[in-house]
């Protein structure tokens, strides 16, 4: 199915959802849940919570299907809901950690970056470095590289101007370079 047909199919499903068709929800879920789960899990890095948030995203989609006006694609819409919920969860988690005094006690018990990076090939090194990016940078990297969204689509998901996306992506890649350099892997910049 090409991309255009896929978008049409999503719009049809949203129309059915607006009319309360629960079977449309099943199809929409089957089409998007894997991608949405991955996006959320890569943001929050907690499998149990990622499952909960995926459920919330689709439940929101069901609840407010009538508000979907088709200005953006269903994929962009769902991803934007996912991003907002992930950021909201991370914010609450940080606040809870701060109030519990956990922030200072948090220690990274994994191997040091350098040891970890030296263990693998170039792909492993890059994956490790990507996993060390901030949520903001990780989001833009995932949306551009894996979800293959355009600049405007990413801008819509993250709710920032399109020019910010280019700058953010540039700095995300620069951070990636610095993480690798810190671990003794210099692949040159940019």
């Amino acid at each position, binding site marked *: 199915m090409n991309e255009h047909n896929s978008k049409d199919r999503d719009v049809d499903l949203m129309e059915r959802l607006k009319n309360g068709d629960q079977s449309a929800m099943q199809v929409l879920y089957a089409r998007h849940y894997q991608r949405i789960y991955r996006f959320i899990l*890569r943001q929050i890095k907690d499998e149990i919570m990622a499952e909960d948030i995926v459920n919330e995203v689709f439940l929101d989609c069901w609840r407010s299907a009538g508000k979907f006006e088709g200005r953006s694609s269903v994929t962009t819409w769902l991803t934007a809901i996912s991003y907002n919920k992930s950021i909201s969860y991370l914010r609450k988690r940080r606040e809870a950690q701060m109030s519990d005094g956990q922030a200072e006690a948090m220690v990274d018990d994994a191997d040091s970056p350098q040891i970890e990076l030296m263990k693998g090939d170039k792909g492993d090194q890059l994956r490790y470095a990507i996993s060390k990016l901030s949520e903001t940078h990780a989001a833009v990297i995932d949306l*551009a590289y894996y979800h293959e969204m355009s600049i405007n689509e990413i801008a819509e998901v993250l709710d920032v101007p399109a020019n910010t996306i280019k700058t953010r992506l540039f700095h995300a890649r620069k951070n990636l370079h610095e993480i690798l350099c810190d671990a003794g892997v210099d692949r040159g910049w940019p």
Partner: protein
Amino acid sequence: MAVKMTDPYSKEQYSTDKYSHEDLVSLLPFYLSGKIERQDKDAVIQWLNNDPDASFILEKVEAERMATITANETLQAPVDGLKRLMQDVASTPQEKSFNNSTTNVLSWLKEKILAPLSAAPAELAWGACAIMMVISLSQSALLYQGAGQSQSTEYNLASGEKYTILSTAIVKFADNAQMEKVAEYLDDTGTIIIDGPTASGLFVLGFIERDDLPVLKDRQKQFKENSNLISQFILKANK
């Protein structure tokens, strides 16, 4: 596009009048995915053709892309999520869309008023169209009271949506009121057309129950004072 091409062995980076070196580097992921504007794509291609360093950067971006794809593909979502979701869906009511009601009113007005006119006026002369609308209304009611609801304030729209009417008012829209503005205003104030127009262009409006709006009295006042859209406003007793 003027290209600021420099000695490839110098430290100065390739750029053009429209694209900085940073811009071009940032466009590479989109160039690889094909999700790129034509103009941006042309600039990237020109860069790749003119700057020997560009293909090395592209190679690095491609490696990052592959690493990101692999990192994502190794994550598998649990398979029992759908069952849980469907249980939640079954017990979760859907929200009414008031944006849709605007669209509905708007398309109804367009269908009933503008469609029969060969040249649609930019501004709607409500009085002039009134007789035509009466004929249309007799054939197709926008809103009707449901069976057994004669004493009730709950109305069903033809689309199946239910509304509780808090109070009604008789209004006449200003002659120069634009149809889009009227439909938008009705939605913003939580108001729907119940009946009308009469031969003199009067409509019966209902103020519906909606949690996100100010109290009824304030809404009625706001409506009465909107002289841009409303030329006459007669409030009927609140329920």
